[in-house]
C-alpha cells in the first residue's frame, strides 16, 4: 500500500492549483451568469497543457498517467475553476479524446488527438438520446452502411459541449436486431453534411458548459470514421467512456469539495454572531467535520479508480460505480452544508457557494444516475441478472 503521490505529481498539482486560482477561477462567475462557454479560460488551459495530459506526446499530450490527469482536474476545481468549465474539460479530454485514443486507428488518432490536445478542436460524446438515457443499449439513432460511407439518422440529447464541439464520438445502431451488440461508434466532424447541433439548453448548474441536442439527418460519415469495429459501440466504446464518466470525471467534483470546505472554514472564522465567530459553535464544527469526512472519502474512491486504470486493469465498473455513487450523493450533502454555513450569503449569487451548490447537483445524474450506480453495484456484487428491465 502506498497512497502518496510522487514528488513530480505533487509539484504539478501545486502548479495547476496556482494556475487555477490566478488565471481561471476569476473568470467563472461571469461565464456562469451569462451561461456562456469561457473561451479565454479554455485557451489558457490549452496553453498550460491541460487538454490532453494523458495522451502520448506524439499526439500532442504529455504522456502522463491517469492519476496525474485526475490531480489536474482536482486541482483546477480546488483552485476555484467553474464547474461548467471543468465539465467541458472532462467531456472533451476523456469522453471524446480518450475514447479515440483507446479505440481509434492510428490515422484517426493522428487526425484528431493533436487538435484536441491543443484545444483547437473541442470534443464531445454523443451517447444519450431523448428516449435512451442510462438504457443506452436502446439507442434509436441508426447508421446505415452504403458503399463508401455511413448514413446516420437520429437525435442525441443532453450532450456536453454539443453546441461548440468540432469532433463528436457518436453512438448509433448499425444492426437494431442485435440490440446492444448491434451498436457502433463513429467520429463525426462538425462540418459533416446532415449534422447540426441544437440550441444550448438552459440548465440548473454547470451553465458555462454548453449542452444541446444533436440532430442527424442523412448525415454522411466516411467509412474510415467508424471507431472500433461494428458492434463494439456499446460493449466496448460506450461502456469504456461511461467508466471514465463514473470515475475520473469526478476529479473536479472532488476538488470542488475542498474548495467549498476552504471557503466555509474562512467564512466560519470571520462571521461573528452572538459575539463570537460562528466557527466556535458546535453545530458549525460538526458540519465542517462531516464535510471533511466526505471530501477525504471521495478523494480515495476517485484515485482508486485512477490507479486501477494506471495498472492496466480493464474496466473497473465496481470501483467506478462506487466512486460515482458516493461522490454524487455525498457531494450534494457537502454543498448543502456549505450553503447552510454561509446562511443568507450562501443563497445569493455574489458568493461562489451558490454556484457550487447548483453545480454539485449534476454529479448524481450525469454518467448514470445514482440509481443506475446502485443497480450496477448490486448486479456486480451479487451476480444479479435482474437488476435492469422488466423483472424489476
Amino acid at each position, binding site marked *: 500500500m502506498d*497512497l502518496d503521490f510522487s514528488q513530480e505529481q505533487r509539484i504539478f498539482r501545486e502548479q495547476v492549483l496556482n494556475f487555477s486560482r490566478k488565471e481561471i477561477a476569476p473568470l467563472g462567475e461571469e461565464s456562469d451568469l451569462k451561461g456562456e462557454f469561457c473561451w479565454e479560460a479554455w485557451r489558457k488551459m490549452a496553453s498550460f497543457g491541460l487538454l490532453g495530459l494523458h495522451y502520448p506526446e506524439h499526439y500532442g499530450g504529455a504522456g502522463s498517467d491517469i492519476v496525474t490527469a485526475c490531480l489536474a482536474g482536482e486541482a483546477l476545481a480546488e483552485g476555484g475553476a467553474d464547474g461548467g468549465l471543468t465539465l467541458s474539460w472532462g467531456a472533451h479530454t476523456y469522453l471524446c479524446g480518450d475514447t479515440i485514443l483507446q479505440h481509434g486507428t492510428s490515422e484517426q488518432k493522428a487526425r484528431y488527438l493533436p487538435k484536441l490536445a491543443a484545444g483547437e478542436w473541442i470534443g464531445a460524446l454523443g451517447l444519450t438520446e431523448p428516449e435512451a438515457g442510462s438504457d443506452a443499449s436502446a439507442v434509436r439513432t441508426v447508421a446505415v452502411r452504403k458503399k463508401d460511407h455511413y448514413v446516420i439518422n437520429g437525435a442525441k440529447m443532453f450532450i456536453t459541449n454539443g453546441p461548440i464541439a468540432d469532433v463528436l464520438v457518436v453512438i448509433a445502431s448499425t444492426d437494431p436486431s442485435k440490440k446492444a451488440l448491434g451498436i457502433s461508434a463513429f467520429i463525426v466532424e462538425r462540418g459533416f453534411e446532415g449534422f447540426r447541433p441544437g440550441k444550448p439548453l438552459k440548465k440548473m448548474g454547470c451553465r458555462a458548459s454548453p449542452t444541446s441536442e444533436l440532430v442527424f439527418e442523412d448525415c454522411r460519415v466516411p467509412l474510415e470514421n467508424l471507431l472500433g469495429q461494428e458492434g463494439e459501440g456499446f460493449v466496448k466504446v460506450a461502456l469504456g467512456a461511461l467508466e471514465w464518466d463514473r470515475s475520473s470525471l469526478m476529479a473536479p467534483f472532488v476538488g470542488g469539495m475542498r474548495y467549498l470546505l476552504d471557503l466555509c472554514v474562512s467564512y466560519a*472564522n470571520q462571521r461573528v454572531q452572538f459575539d463570537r465567530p460562528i466557527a466556535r459553535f458546535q453545530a458549525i464544527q460538526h458540519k*465542517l467535520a462531516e464535510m471533511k469526512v466526505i471530501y477525504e*472519502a471521495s478523494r480515495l474512491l476517485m484515485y*482508486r479508480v485512477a490507479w486501477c486504470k494506471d495498472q492496466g486493469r480493464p474496466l473497473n465498473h465496481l470501483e467506478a460505480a462506487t466512486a460515482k455513487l458516493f461522490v454524487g450523493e455525498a457531494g450534494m450533502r457537502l454543498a448543502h452544508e456549505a450553503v447552510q454555513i454561509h446562511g443568507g450569503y450562501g443563497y445569493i449569487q455574489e458568493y461562489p457557494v451558490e454556484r457550487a451548490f447548483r453545480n454539485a447537483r449534476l454529479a448524481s445524474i450525469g454518467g448514470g444516475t445514482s440509481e443506475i450506480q*446502485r*443497480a450496477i453495484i448490486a448486479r456486480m456484487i*451479487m451476480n*444479479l441478472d435482474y437488476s435492469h428491465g422488466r423483472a424489476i
Partner: protein
Amino acid sequence: MDFDLKKEQKEFQRALRASCERVLKPKAAEVDRQGLVPEENLKELARVGYLGLFIPESFGGNNGDMVCFLVGTEEVARCCPSTALVAGASLMRFGLPTILYASQSQKERILPGLARGELRGAWAHTEPQGGCDTENLGTTASPTEQGFSLSGKKAYVLNGPEAAALLVVARLTTARAPGEAAKVFLMEEPCPGLERGPLVPTVGARGARVCGLELRDCVVPRDSLLGGEQGPSAGSIEALPQAPLLMAGYSIGVGQAALELAIQHARQRMTFGRPIVSYQEVHFRIADMYVSVDVARQLALKAAWLIDSGRGSRVESSLAKLFASEMSLLCGQSCVHIHGGSGLLEGGEADRLLRDSRMPLVLGGTAEMHRLGIARDVLAGKA
C-alpha cells in the same frame, strides 16, 4: 501509488479469515448468549498471530503493522464481534501503551502472555461521572513511601472482570498543572484494594465483559506509573492515532457481516414468487451497505498506512472511526430491515449484529467527540 495490500498482509488476512471462520464463527451466537469469550478463541487468535501484532519479537510478538491490525480486526469482528472487542481491547487499549511506555521488566512479565492469548488486559479510564473529560477525574493517585496509593471508581471497564493486568488512569495529586495530572498506572495482579464490581450487561458484543472497578487505597509500586515521572498523560494515550482504528476495524467487520447476512437472506426469502433480492428496494439497500463498508475500509486503511509510514494522523484515524461507526449501525439496521419480521427475533443473527453494531458510535470516543476533534484541525488549517 498503490491501493493493494502487500503480499504478507494479504497472506495474514487469508490465514486469519480461515481461522476465524473455522473457530470463531460457529460459536458466535453462543458467545453472545452466554456473555463470555472462551479462552480457545484467544488462543486461536494468538496462534495465527493477531495477538502478537505490533508486539516486538523479543517479547513473543511478530512486530506486525497497523494495516494488519486493521484488516485483522475486521476479520475477527466479521466472525465474532465479542471476540474482536476482547482481543482488540487487550492489544490496542492495553497492549499498545504498554509496548510504547512500560519498562523492560514490565514488558517481559506481560507481553509474552498477551501474545500467547493467556492474559487479557484492560484500559480503565471512564468513571461514573465522565469519560472524555480527562482533566476532571475523581480517581486519585497519592505518592506514598513505596509508590502510590490509588482511590476512586472506574466504570464500564472492558475486560475488567478477567484482566490480569490493567492500565488505570488516575489524577496525580502532586501534579503541578491540571493538564499533567491524568497519569496512567500499570497494575498487575495481585492488586489488594482493587475490587471488581458485578458484570454490567450490555446492548451488544455481550461476550466482551464489562464491569466497574473500585480502588480503595490500592497501593502500587513506584514503577507502576507508566513511563515514570516523564511518562505519558492519559490524554496523550487517548490521542494516539492508533487508538480509533480498533473501533474502525470492529465496525467494518460488523458491517461486512451484516452485508453478507443481508445478501444471504435476500436471496433465499421469496415473496410474490421471487426472491426479495430481485426487488430494487432491497438490492439498492444492499448496494448502499456495500458502498458504505467499502468507503469505511478505504478510510481506515489510509489511516493505518499513514501510521505504518511513520506519519500517523489523528484526524485521519478519527474520521475513519467516525465514518465506520455510523456505517456499522446503518448496516446493522438495514440487515434487520431486509430480514423483516425474522430480523426482530431475539437470538437471531440479524438481531445480534444490530446490537453489536450500536456500540462503535459510543466506545472509543463518541461520534460527537470525533467530530469536534476533526473540526478543530480543519478550522486550524491543519487538515
